């Protein structure tokens, strides 16, 4: 088992998380949320560019184990495994999302509020509709919720905030997924390799785009 995938939550804690989420849903106004403010400093204006950085190296992470489980499940609904690449969880996308929302910069802190509130909302919505954690729902049940919030312009007014959350979450999921070697391979990025010459597009490309 991959060490970065969160361990299964003890059942009692999982229930607590679902109940807590359920209780907050009616009060949830999307303005404030429980996570403490980010106090860490940024990496500054002269960071070591050659260092390898991992989530949690530069600033403390935000998500609880339960929130990570919800985020992992949602990430895999957005990017499931197929014959070309693994699911989001296979590339530890949740680590990236947690790193992102924990960063002490304005855009990231804005996203922090949206993501944490959104994860709370989606658990509450799962509890409301199916009396279960989002992580325990069937694919069909997960999709029933996601279908309501996956496209902000068409979402019902009562889902507007949730749809905004979904949009940010999907953006971050792609950010975490397609910046990896497996993501590059999936999308067809084959650069970042030294070449003796730049030959331009091969004939099949010129033909494909209608240039020859």
């Amino acid at each position, binding site marked *: 088992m991959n060490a970065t995938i969160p361990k299964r939550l003890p059942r009692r804690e999982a229930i607590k998380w679902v109940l807590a989420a359920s209780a907050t849903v009616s009060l949830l106004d999307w303005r404030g949320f429980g996570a403490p403010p980010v106090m860490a400093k*940024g*990496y500054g*204006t*002269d*960071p070591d*560019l*050659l*260092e390898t*950085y991992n989530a949690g*190296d530069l600033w403390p992470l935000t998500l609880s184990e339960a929130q990570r489980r919800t985020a992992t499940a949602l990430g895999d*609904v*957005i*990017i*499931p495994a*197929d014959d*070309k*690449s693994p699911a989001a969880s296979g590339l530890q996308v949740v680590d990236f999302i947690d*790193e*992102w929302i924990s*960063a002490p910069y304005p*855009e*990231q802190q804005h996203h922090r509020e949206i993501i944490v509130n959104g994860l709370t909302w989606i658990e509450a919505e799962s509890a409301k509709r199916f009396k279960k954690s989002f992580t325990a729902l069937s694919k069909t049940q997960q999709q029933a919720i996601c279908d309501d919030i*996956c*496209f*902000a*312009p*068409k979402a019902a007014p009562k889902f507007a905030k949730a749809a905004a959350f979904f949009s940010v979450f*999907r*953006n971050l999921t*792609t*950010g975490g997924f*397609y*910046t*990896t*070697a497996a*993501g*590059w391979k*999936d*999308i*067809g*990025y*084959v*650069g*970042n*390799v*030294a*070449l*003796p*010459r*730049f*030959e*331009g*597009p*091969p004939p099949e*490309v*010129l033909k*494909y*785009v*209608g*240039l020859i």
Partner: protein
Amino acid sequence: MPFVASTKTQPAYDVIVVGSGAAGGQTAYVLAAAGVKVLMLEAGRRYDPGSETPMFNTSRHAPLRGAATPDKPFGFFDATVDGGWRVPGEPYLVKRGAAASEWVEATATDVGTKQNFLWWRSRMLGGRTNHWGRFSFRMGEYDFKPRRRDGMGIDWPFDYQDLAPYYDKVESLIGVFGSNEGLENTPNSSPGVLLPPPKPRAYELLAKKGCAKLGIPVIPSHVAILSQPQDHLRIPQMLHPHSPAMQKALADNMQTRLACMWATHCGRGCAIKANYQSPTVHLPPALATGNLDIITDAMVREVSVDDDRRATGVHYVDKKSRQDRHVKARVVVLAASGCESARILLNSKSAHFSNGLANSSGKVGRYLMDSVGSSLGGQIPALENAPVHNEDGAMTMHMYMPWWKYREQLAGKLDFPRGYHIEFGGGRGMPDAGSFSGMEKFTGGSYGKKFKEDLRRYYGSFVNFSGRGEMIPNDDCYCEIDSNQKDTWGIPVLRFHWKWSEHEERQAAHMQKTFKEIIESMGGRVTSPPQSDGRKAIYPGGSIIHEVGTTCMGSDPKNSVLNQFCQAWDVKNLFVTDGGPFVSNADKNPTLTIMANAWRATDYLLEELRKGNI
């Protein structure tokens, strides 16, 4: 002893050069080659592209997958140290919002701001040359005499022909790829000067095909990147016919520069020296002569003068010890960037120069210019699901569109007087943290396996167009000292006045219209509606980082700061060789012209030294 501690300087130098970027690097290079003893002062830290450049590092290993942050506004790997739109401890003052009357500290961390002006600085050896776009377009004949042509702006006190030989020299020295197309006001280089341009990418060819229908030329870009190794036998001999020592110093460095390997972004700098940045191209041969000393972390605050109204040296703050120091020289050259050099002059007040140094005309800080910038994106169905291939190339455009409507403009058929060129990028670049953000506009909000398929389809099908247009200098755009505020080094800071005129705003609106036409000529659709209101289409002043003006050259001491050789009218042994002397800011990106002009000015400086005039 090239890099020296602030306590180990020589008792006196022939010339002090303030700044180590395009202007400082070029000036020091020419001086050192001529055997003159030079002390260079750089406000930032020592920086070594050979050991510090994150070549091939992937965003997977960077914080936030390399995304831009207020600490690194152009992304984590950008070769900017202690800088960006803000420099720690070194504020500048701006107005925020249309009707703002209060001066406030600049806080913007990107160009989507209500701030009237943004000032990009970096505090490192080589300055902004480490990350710049490397576009190297010559200004043309019209660009030096804009007033003669259409009655607006200011003419340079010399012609294109005066600078043409220096363009050849600079292009040969730094290495520029491109082609000679013989287009109007888009000068050719002399034969054998340019390196061959790389082949165009698919989307560039598609744009060329579309633009042909619109009558817009699409030609090879000119970029300061080695598409092949430089001729280390011919060029040093040509550039330094009378100095075997400099020929050797240059040839040695040229042989350490490798040709581009068509990967890893130039904005990170280049460890193999395939592109131009001052610390890999100008400084090594200059240092090899033994004639150049460099002090880093040296923040110059003032030029000192004597009772004969001559410059005697400069005062600077040694940032490590926070001590104030003074160094002497026969000649002082400011090359700190247009605004920073103006700041030093305005802060150099004395009994003889109560209005700031070299400022009897009152023009120091005036006629600050940037380029007009505006952008629009397009999505091109013909590029969807294209076969997988490597499109990295030179990591910047291989083709561009030079301004093509000179005649219509002169005939009064356009509602704005000056031109712009178009830069564009797109295709199958390395995915970054935000590459697929906002895709729901195209996918209709898909997720799951369908979403993955959608991204494979759309990846590589986006092209973004950016205009870079000429701004006409005006009385509303200038910088001045705010005497109430000092930076952390105790040096009074700049504040910026800025107002685009209708000439620039209409031009920006025209850019938007043109970009839409090009995108549609490629069979594509715009990704957001084009902006018909130029005031909304144009980026704030300073956004394009083409900072020129502020120490204007001219032929009359009454209305200019410098003569045509960048020599201060008021102080014979004081020169400014950065973007400050510019009196027009053609649509051609200014760095190449800064270097050519600096070389010309430095030749004159040397001649004056030889004659004993300074």
